[in-house]
Each structure stands twice: as C-alpha cells, then as structure tokens.
C-alpha cells in the first residue's frame, strides 16, 4: 500500500505540467552552498554513547549541500546534510507560488543508549536469546559465570523517517494536502526478560502514516476536514529467551516468552473551522475529532511451553481485541466587547473510551477489568485582558477542569491491604485562577508578574478521603493539593544594542491531605540572558539558568503492618547552567570567529528523617549528579565571495555519578544479571574539522 501511495505521490508533479505548457520563458535563478571537509574525533571513554547519543561523530568526510532555484513562479529548495553518516538528512521543498507546493524528506538519526554492554546470552538482536553451554558450570547448561566470555554489544536504535507531502490550492480559496510517511526503528534497546535479567530487546518497528486534508480559506471564514491513518508494526512482538535459572531448578534452560509491543492501527477524522469578524469584534474557532486505536493479540502466540499452555487454559478468552475511542471537541471564542478589553472563553471536551476485551482467569485470580481505563475530561475557562494606562495590561482568568475515570470493574476494594496504585480517583477537579500584570511603558523595559493558584479535589470511589484513616497511598498526580505559583519577568534594553532578560518562577505544591506518598514539593527557577551587539556585527551573549527542586514525602513500607509513615524522604535537586558565546564577524579582513562555552552542573541528594521509627538510614549524596562542559570554536576565512574555509574545534567533557551505578557489578548475588546499560558514561571528547565551502 505504502509503495503505491509513494509512486502516486512521485507522479503528482506531472499533473501540474499542462497548466504551465506554452507559457512564456522566465530567467532561471539559482544559488546554493556546497560544503565538503574532513573531521577527526578523539573520545576518551569506555562508553561513548552519551557523546554520540543522537549524532554520528567519527573520523571521516563530512559535507552538506544547499541548493535553491527559481524559475518564474516555480521554486525548488534542497538541503542535504551529513551524507553517508547515520544522521544524514535530505529535504526538498518546491512548488509553484500560489498554486501548489511539495515537500520530500529523508531523515536518519541514531539513538545510542549504551556502548560495550555485555550479556551472557547469544543470539543478540534476534528474537531468541539462547544460553550457551558452559562446560565449567554445574549444571553444565547454566549461564556463563565469567563476564569475560559474555557477548559485547551496543544498545542503539537507528531511526529513519521518510515521506512527502503535497499541497495544492491552484490560487483558489480551496486547498488540499496529502502526505505519506514511513518511520523505521532498528536496533537493540534495554529490556528485562525476567526480574533482574537485563538483556537487549531486538527492535524492528515500522510505522506508516497517511494524512489527507481539504479546506477552505476565506477572509472571515475557514474550514477544513482531515483524515489520518497510522499503522504500527513490530517485527518482534515476542522475545524468546532461555531461562538460565542459575539456581538449577526445573525451569533451567526452558524457553520462555517475553511479550513486547503490540501492533496497532490508529485512525482519526477531524474537522476545524474558524470565523472572524463576528459581532463584538469576535472570532470563534471550533474543532472536533474522532479517533480509534485498535489491535488484536492472540494468547496462543505466546504459548511456548506446557506451563503457559496450562495457564492459558483457564482464560475466559484467548484473543484480546484492543479498541479505544477518542472523541474530542474544542471551542474558543475571543472578543473585544469594549475598547481595551479582550475576552477569551474556551471549552474542551475529551472522551477516551476503552472498549478492549476483558481478560480473566476462570479461577478469578486476575482480571484486567480493573485496569481498562476510560475517562472524560471537561475543561472550561474564561480570561479577561484589559489595557490600562501607561501601556499596562492586566489579565485574569479562571479554569475549571474535571476528569471522570472509570473501569469495567471498580478498582477499589474496601480493605486496607488492597489499596494499590491503581485504586483510581473516580473524579478529579482542578480549579485554577490566575492574575497577570504586564507593563512596558518605557519601551526599553518590560516587566510582568503572574500569580496562579490551583485547588485540586479528588473523589475516590467508596473511600473516605481522610488522612487520618487508613486510606493507604494516594497517587500524587491526582491527590488533593493546593498549588501557588509566582512568575516574574523582565526584559531590559537600556541601549539599542544591549538586551537583558530575566525570568523567575516560584512554585509550591502542597498535597493537603496526603499523609503518605508525596506531601509537598517546591520549585525555584531563575533564568537570565544578555546579548550585546558591538562594533558593527559582533555579538557577545551570556546565559545563566538555575533550577532548584525539593520534594518531600512520607513513606510506609508495608501497609498491612505499617499504618503510619515509617520514614520521611526529602529529595533535593539543583541544576546550574551557564554559558557565553562570542561572534566576531570580519575580525580581520575576511575572517570571522565564533566561540561558545557552556557549563552544566547537576547535584541531587535524597535525605531521610528516620526519627519516626529510629531506623538507621543513610542519605544519598550522589543522585544523578553530573557536570558537562562544552567548548566550540570556529574560524571562517572567506577567500572571495564564493570560496571560504572553516576550521572548527569542539571539546566536550561529561562526568556522571549516581549511587545506583557506582561500583557497578554485572552479576549480583549470583541471581541478578546486568548488562551495563548507562554504566560508565563519562567521556572527554575532542573534535576538529576543516570544511571548504563554495557558494554559488
């Protein structure tokens, strides 16, 4: 199907040819840039995946091409970057002004998770992980006890995206757009085939997307209808793996089956319209859509041994038909009923209805009916803005948001020990109020202050929401809470060539009634930047960012025994970043110089207050701590208007420290097996390049 669509798309430009036949000749204008060069990379690291996370930086040739052409009303633009590398891209735009345009693209990108990982499994990258025979082991078919003989591999997934889109309007108010796209992912991602056996999951995903839109664009009225179809296919829906069962029990080397991501089909139909020029200087916009997500999975496909076959005999059904509907309606009305006053009224409705199959065992030992989540979300709001004297604008607003959740069976059972995470709040209501004042009377100084207050109330079915009863844990994202937030902003331009900007945010969340789980969190963020343009075109810019987060929680360890918090936990995270950039065009004749530097520091800790029970807990001092320094310098010398050479240098140093990865072990207690994902990501990298450019 996708091939037929691609072929049809490629022929579309032919269709426009008769329109232009016989027309007068116009001058052909073209311009572009060709770049070619070499780069050398030196990376000091045992696992340079973090350095290469989304890019392909290696010794070799580099290049790019930009080509623009104009001929009368026709235009053509081509961009190609990093040809032959894993992050290459090709982008073509073209068309005829006022009539049609098209876009074709191919984009590739690696996602490198971790290099030099290890696993005792063989068959990595396939959907059957096998345990090699180890003659020294007892029993002989158990796993390899020495990591020296384990397989070494990279956790990496290559992403490819290619497709095209055509928009035709033929100089009328009507237009139609049509696009196709394919996305592919291939490689290996970290997975756990069984508890604490980390192994690579083979990835081979294909997603085909098709979209079609037709619309009308008038001066006061516009409308469109659109359709979207997306099909996801996973070549490895199941991952067979031999259970090493190091304890030598009866399951040793029995092939098991891990079930990965299911295929699915997503389709959506939408209609939008907007109407300007209504009374009271109003404009109204509405959008409605219906979408369906479906799939079909058979339990028989995962019957790989007698144990699972026997287990599935007790199922009420062996086919799962996934079926989720999304219905959406949104409307916004903006008006200016009187001079200087603007209003905005909006309403959004979203219904997610999960009609997927109920699966349960005949013995009643499990049922997904407590998890098949459906919900309705209603959001309504009103905002007023009024322009006061001295270029001051005041805004106030209120928003009501309600989420009603449901599952085929109640997720809550009236007994303390069953209060699990999926004990859902049936209804959550957020009431949000904000007020904002902004002034830029001075022109060169703009200042704003915004206050936001949110009050959340949740209704847990059958549960008396009382912190002093044994209600167990309340999921933090839906727990009753009060949020207060203050934002300050300044934009300061004392001179024509100097700009400052500062943003400050303080936010406090108080989970009013939570006795266990998260009780409060506090955030303070400040960002500052400056840009100074001096001489003719030189620019010096700087940036500072600081984020501080504190999250407090009370923890219990076992609800059945601990009806009161056992310990308190305080998470404290700081993040700093600052940088400078200098651009000196024509520093001397024909020479441009650019240099930038950035420093990041992340410092986290987890502290405990164990006075509740006297338990001796030790604070965590290195919680996702890291520093990163980046220095980039570039000199560009222009020989003439066409030829130039660029000499560049990049330095990066990344140092990571976290308690969960310190003193890393691949085998823990002869029962847990780790593959080294995210282990030892530190790197120091130097990269140099020379690029010759020809501009035409």
């Amino acid at each position, binding site marked *: 199907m996708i091939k037929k669509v691609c072929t049809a798309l490629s022929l579309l430009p032919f269709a426009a040819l008769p329109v232009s036949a016989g027309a007068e000749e116009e001058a052909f204008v073209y311009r572009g840039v060709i770049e070619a060069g070499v780069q050398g990379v030196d990376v000091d690291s045992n696992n340079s995946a973090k350095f290469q996370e989304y890019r392909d930086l290696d010794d070799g040739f580099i290049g790019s091409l930009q080509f623009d052409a104009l001929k009368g009303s026709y235009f053509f633009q081509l961009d190609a970057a990093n040809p032959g590398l894993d992050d290459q891209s090709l982008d073509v735009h073209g068309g005829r002004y006022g009539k049609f345009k098209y876009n074709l693209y191919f984009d590739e990108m690696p996602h490198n998770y971790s290099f030099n990982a290890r696993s005792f499994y063989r068959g990595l990258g396939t959907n059957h992980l096998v345990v090699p025979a180890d003659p020294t082991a007892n029993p002989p078919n158990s796993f390899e006890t020495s990591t020296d003989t384990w397989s070494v591999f990279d956790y990496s997934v290559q992403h490819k995206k290619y497709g095209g889109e055509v928009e035709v309007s033929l100089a009328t108010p009507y237009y139609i757009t049509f696009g196709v796209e394919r996305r592919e992912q291939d490689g290996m991602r970290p997975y756990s085939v069984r508890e604490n056996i980390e192994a690579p999951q083979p990835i081979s995903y294909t997603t085909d997307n098709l979209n079609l839109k037709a619309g009308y664009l008038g001066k006061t009225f516009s409308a469109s209808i659109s359709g979207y179809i997306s099909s996801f296919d*996973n070549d490895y829906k199941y991952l067979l793996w031999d259970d090493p069962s190091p304890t030598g029990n009866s399951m040793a080397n029995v092939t098991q089956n891990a079930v990965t991501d299911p295929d699915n089909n997503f389709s959506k139909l939408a209609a939008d319209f907007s109407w300007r020029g209504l009374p009271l200087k109003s404009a109204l916009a509405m959008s409605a859509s219906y979408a369906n997500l479906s799939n079909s999975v058979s339990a028989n496909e995962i019957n790989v041994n007698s144990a699972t076959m026997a287990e599935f005999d007790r199922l009420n059904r062996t086919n799962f038909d996934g079926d989720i509907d999304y219905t959406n309606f949104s409307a916004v009305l903006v008006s200016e009923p009187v001079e200087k006053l603007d209003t905005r009224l909006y309403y959004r409705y979203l219904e997610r209805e999960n009609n997927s199959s109920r699966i349960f065992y005949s013995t009643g030992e499990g049922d997904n009916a407590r998890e098949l989540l459906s919900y309705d979300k209603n959001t309504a709001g009103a905002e007023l803005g009024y322009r006061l004297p001295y270029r001051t604008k005041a805004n106030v607003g209120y928003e009501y948001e309600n989420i009603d959740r449901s599952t085929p069976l109640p997720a809550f059972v009236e007994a303390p020990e069953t209060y699990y995470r999926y004990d859902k709040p049936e209804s959550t209501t957020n009431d949000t109020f904000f007020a904002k004042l902004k002034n830029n009377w001075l022109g060169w100084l703009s200042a704003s202050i915004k206050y936001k207050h949110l009050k959340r109330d949740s209704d847990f079915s059958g549960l008396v929401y009382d912190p002093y009863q044994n209600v167990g844990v309340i999921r933090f994202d839906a727990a009753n809470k009060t949020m207060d937030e203050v934002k300050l902003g300044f934009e300061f331009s004392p001179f024509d060539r100097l700009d400052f900007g500062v943003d400050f945010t303080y936010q406090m969340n108080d989970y009013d009634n939570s006795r266990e789980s998260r009780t409060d969190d506090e955030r303070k963020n400040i960002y500052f930047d400056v840009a100074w343009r001096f001489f003719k075109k030189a620019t010096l810019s700087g940036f500072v960012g600081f984020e501080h987060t504190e999250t407090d929680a009370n923890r219990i360890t076992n609800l059945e025994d601990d009806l009161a918090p056992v310990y308190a936990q305080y998470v404290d995270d700081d993040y700093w970043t600052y940088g400078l950039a200098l651009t000196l065009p024509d520093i001397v004749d024909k020479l441009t110089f650019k240099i930038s530097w950035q420093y990041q520091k992340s410092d986290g800790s987890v502290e405990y207050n164990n006075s509740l029970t006297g338990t001796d807990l030790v604070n965590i001092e290195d919680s996702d701590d890291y520093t990163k320094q980046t220095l980039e310098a570039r000199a560009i010398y222009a020989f003439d208007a066409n030829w130039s050479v660029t000499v560049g240098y990049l330095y990066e140093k990344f140092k990571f420290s976290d308690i969960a990865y310190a003193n890393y072990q691949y085998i823990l207690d002869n029962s847990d097996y780790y593959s080294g994902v995210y282990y030892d990501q530190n790197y120091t990298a130097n990269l140099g390049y020379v690029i010759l450019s020809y501009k035409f």
Partner: protein
Amino acid sequence: MKNKCLGLFLLPLSLLLLFFAPSTGDATDDKVADDKKGFIGAITCKDCHETQYETYAKSVHFQKYIKGPQSQDACETCHGPGAAHVEKGGGRGVDIFTFDKNSGHTAEEMSAVCLKCHATTARMTFWDMGQHKKNDVQCTSCHTIHVQQRTKVDQLAVCFQCHRDTKAQVSKQSRHPILEGKVKCSDCHDVHGTLSKAMIKAETPNLLCYTCHADKRGPFVWVHPPAEENCLICHTPHGSRHENLFADRIHVICQDCHDDASHHGAAYDATSGFGGANVSNRFVARACVECHHTMHGSVNFRRSFSR
C-alpha cells in the same frame, strides 16, 4: 523492489520536468499602484534604505507571483505611504510604520500588517485563539522580514528568546534531540495557534507523544493507568537530569504512588547501591524498571507481576 526503483526514478524526474517547464507569469497582477495618495514607490525608498531594499529584493516578498508586497505597493505595502516621511526628511519611525519594539505600535497593530495577506493561510487559522497573540507576540518577534529567499526560522534561536526555561532544559543530560535539529519545537507545538493546551499539535499530550512513540500506544491487556492518562505524570518533555526524561529519580517517582505494600515503600538509601551493606536489586542500575519493564502496559496474558 521494482516498484521502489520505479518510484525513486519517477520522483526526481517528475520534479525536474516540472521545474523546467515554462511558467505562465500570470499569477498576480504586478502593476505598480502609482495612483495612490501618499505613495512614493520603492525606488524612492531605496535611495535612503539601500541595504534594506537589497535584502527585500532577495526575499520571498519580492516574488511578484504571490499576493505580497511586490505585487502590491512594494515597501509601502507594509510600511504605509512614505510621502510624509520623505517630506519630513526621514528619520526612524517619522510618519512611517515600523516594526521596532520602540515604535509605539502595539503587537496587534504590527501583526495586523502581516495578516492582511497571511490571515488567509491554513497555518494562521487559529492565530486569534493562540497564546502568542494573547501575550503580545507579533510576527516580527520571530520572523525577520528582510532576509534572503529562505524564510525558515532558526527555531532554537527564536523560541529561546522568550522560553529561557526550555533553553536550559534542552541541554540536560536526558533530552530529546532538539539541539541536533532532529526534533524541532514546531514538531510538537503549533506556534501560530491551536485550541489545545500549551499549543501542542494534538488533543492530549499522549496523542502527541504517540506520533513518534507508536510502540507505546497499546491498546494493552494490562494497563498502567497514569501512563494511559498522561505521559507527563512521569516524564518531562524538554529535558531532565534523570535518565529517560523522567521527572524525578526513578525509584522516587514510582514510590510517590507505590509505597503501600511489599517492597514498594522500602527505604532505599546510600547503602542500597552495588557494594553497599544493604545492596538491593530493586535499587541498583535502572531500579524498578529492571523488573517492571512494562510500565507502559503489556499484552502478555499472564497475570504475573512483570507481565
């Protein structure tokens, strides 16, 4: 394979043929509106503003085939009639419409100039409803008009002028490939206005995330309700100190809902790491995910805890 080769051959061929086909040159009326009061024509403007004129002449606005300045009143299409400006000897903003932030014009007035032509484009359908208009962002806050043919916005430079928090976040150790240009701000947000929250290009965050993360769509037999409801409960989109764009340290974010029974609420402290006195396989490496790897949902019919 044959079909693929055929498509690969036809596509560039058809594009080339189309490109070299003669054009009609009749798209718009290019006559100069020289009979309007107060209009002086672009040549007069060029006398003083040569640099600006040169960039204009290389821009898409200079195209006579589109309904734009060149097919109307050139410079004065956007800046208004220039006669009074010339009579007073010129000067910044003297009897001429400019788009400087110190010009005294409101954002709405400045955007209105652009919207005379651009209001009837598909991408501007919801401009009136968007947060940018509401917060006095005008077209020239992001778009530089006097540029060469290419009109693509350098999104990192432009968006980070105001969104300083995002600028700090996208360079964190865990992030989307935004700095590499593989994910653009406009892939997720429609900056020209939407009816959705945060101007995202979908009805909900999840439906947006599923565009790229189609493997997380499900539908699943066993469901993790918060993952079905909102990806942003556990993940932060622009960048995080924590791996996999987690909003917090993984064992902390899981415990914020799961500390009710069994090992969920156990205290994992500095002695729980590799080599620690109380090393725990529930804390080291990827922590909870080492066992509960199907946190987005699963279609395994087995009712085991790891599914």
